[in-house]
């Protein structure tokens, strides 16, 4: 049987899932990485966001066959990094976490934004997380958290 090999949270892994299987299912069911949440399955809510070769993408839209050889980082792996610690601290300080279901995806989008643009304006932050839905916070405290992370994490990004 043909297996698909890729790097997952810094480890070389392989799966024998059919190439059309959704990446989110492979991550959650086969590798037990529960951090990527399924809020819609349509690529609309961003709760399942992961890094594919450092680009943030919705894992519910990616067939696993398309990631042969790619580097995948999920929140489960990203949460082991110093960058994550900074984001987590700022999310807490800003009060950005309510129900928490959108948050892992939101954190990935925050990190992607800051690594591309370490000093984003409010407008750029809003645009940067516009692919991630949150129904609890009205976004403002998340925007504050990212702004805070940019400032407190000066030099990290």
């Amino acid at each position, binding site marked *: 049987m043909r297996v698909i090999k890729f790097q997952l949270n810094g480890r070389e892994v392989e799966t024998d899932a059919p190439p059309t299987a959704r990446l989110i299912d492979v991550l*959650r069911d086969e590798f037990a990485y*529960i*951090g*990527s*949440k*399924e*809020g*819609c*399955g*349509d690529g*609309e*809510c961003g*709760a399942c966001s992961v890094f594919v070769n450092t680009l943030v993408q919705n894992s519910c839209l990616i067939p696993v066959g398309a990631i042969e050889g790619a580097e995948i980082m*999920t*929140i*489960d792996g990203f*949460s082991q990094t110093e960058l*994550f610690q900074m*984001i*987590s601290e700022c*999310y*807490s300080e800003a*009060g950005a*976490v*309510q*129900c*928490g*279901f*959108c*948050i*892992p995806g939101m*954190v990935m989008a925050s990190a992607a934004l800051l690594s591309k643009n370490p000093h984003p304006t*409010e407008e750029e*932050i*809003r*645009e940067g*997380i*516009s*692919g*991630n*839905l*949150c*129904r*609890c*916070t*009205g*976004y*403002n*405290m*998340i*925007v504050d958290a990212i702004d805070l992370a940019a400032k407190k994490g000066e030099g990290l990004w």
Partner: protein
Amino acid sequence: MIAKDISTSVKKKDHDGKISGQLAYISDVKVDSMLYGVLYRSPIAYGKVRSIRLPPLPEGYEKIGAEHIPGNNFVKLLHNDQPIFANEWVNYIGEPMFMLVGPKLDILYQLVDEVEVDFEEHPAIFTLEEAIKQKDQTGVFAYHEFGESLDVIKSIEKKAHRVIEEVYETGYQEHVYLEPQGMLGIYKADEILVKGSMQCLYYVKNALISALACEDDEVRVIQSPTGGGFGGKEDFPSMMACHVAIAAKVVKKPVMLLFDRAEDMEVTTKRHPAKFTYRTAIDEQGNILSMNVEVFLDGGANAGLSPVVLQRALLNSSGVYKIPHFHAKGYALKTNTVPNGAFRGFGAPQSFAAIESHLGHISSMLKRDPIQYKRNYLVKQGDPTITNGRFRDPILLEDMIQDLLQTADYTKKKEAFRAFNQQNKRFKKGIGASLFLHGCGFTGSGERDHIKAVVKLEKTEQDQVLIKVSNSDMGQGALTTLSKIVAKGLDLPYEDILFPDPDTKDVPDSGPTVASRTTMIVGKLLERAASQLKAGWQSGVAQEVVEHYIHEDMIPWDEETFSGDAYPAYSWGVNLIEVEVDILTGSVRIERVYGSFDIGRAIDERIVKGQIDGGMAQGIAYGFMEKMTSQLGKIQQKTISDYGPPTAMDLVPIESKLYDNPYAGGPYGAKGAGELPLTGGAPAVQAAIEDALQIPFYQIPVTPELIIESLTKKDGDARD
């Protein structure tokens, strides 16, 4: 950390688990030999089931239906008219008829697709309009009428300078909690355990006892971390719990039922669409002489919570105003559409949208500023409520309005916008306000007669204290807020207070997590429990204290005559919103948002700010963005973007302010804060759009399509 001031914010109890994604929601749970369930749902709106033909089921797959229910085939709530599995009649498209269970989801979906059911179809009622037409014959879930006699109102209207009658309509609102509904049933030899996303553990437990016809200790309910509720996980989870519990009992294995987004949007409860008629008599100076209100709620196919939603809609139908000679009546009506249920605000957002719109329109007819006009009628401390209760506590509304008008520089801004609009052909700016309140806790004597809340604190030998209540944290921060109340009462570090996931085997019934009651009612009981524990504190010894609800002295509520004190306390709000409307596309841009609130005292300022920001976002979007429709009994929006809740780019920072007005009946002075912030959003955004365009609207959401249509009509009228 021992907090000096209760309002000072602390790190949330569940922060680390949530932000790392490692806190397990129900869809993250897998247990050995777990099966999945997929529901077969009625494809028709109303009819009798003639026959069901199943495809051959592979080994390990089973059909679970009404024939497997040991007890009542209804979800125990108010009217008991909602079947767990509809096996004789179906009443709406999407009603669950039976469930297929088995190990593989894709196979289950395929099998469900191959099911054939033969129905005898009957004419269905698809719209509120049709339901109103035939309400004298059938289809009334609830009805109330109260206030001034109609004879008196008639004679006032006869002598009035003018009688202004308006019809106003509000649409569905969908919760869009980010975590879709999910429930797991686990079979054990001596009990059925149900775990899932929910707000009300004991609603679920009572429904299970009724369906399984079993003893109290044979069912157990555990709340999983809940990814948003907003009322959507108040009544609905009870039905799913019955499905998985019955299935688990039959197959003697764990059964998981998870909805995907499309299923969640099509079949779960929504905010009731409503229709109002306001009829107001005024004299030559524009003074209000009388007001007569009719309210109709579309309940959908089952009564559900509609009778109680109707009560709150009626109780708020006069807004924050003291109206002479007020009369109201209202109906919750049956249609063959998806049942509507609880949604943050619970009938009040519809009523506030209507009354604020109506008084706004009257003020513009009189060429008066809407805020100034409304200020003439504000209720004051000591005034009677429309049900002859009393506003007993200080009301700060007048000060809140005054402050906000200054902060926002209202008068100048209105002039500036008028000038801008005269010079600008395409873009029009407007500013609009809303004034509102929220009655905290259950309506009437519900807390005393139905809920009878009990809370428990357990102290371990290590002197840690565990909170034992049946209330859910669904994101609103109950874990943190209630822990802070207990920590403060015991003078203990907040970190020493533990709050395990509520489990009915372990926690008393402290009531559901609804009605802005958790902090105020349950928090007060915990405050008392903490002081009891502190008084008898013995270090190194395991101890337990229990507190029971004590009803505050009020004017007794009588549901029959709709009179007395409907609520023990009220929270208050003022919103001001500035918009810019593009008259070419009809699109509305929110420019500034102000919110002032009196919630007694904040237990945690940051958590309250989160409630304000999130609630106002939902309320504002309800007013102009979020549109859900039903066609021939079928919900038309199946994806989140079909429906259109706001993204970060649709919103702006909210300039909010809290007013300290401690309430003696709440912990450390706190009143309810969960629902209030949603209520003012829609009426303020509508008023702002009206101010920009100088056109009245008679419905929400005020969508771009509606704006263009109204502008075209205005142009046409101008030409005529």
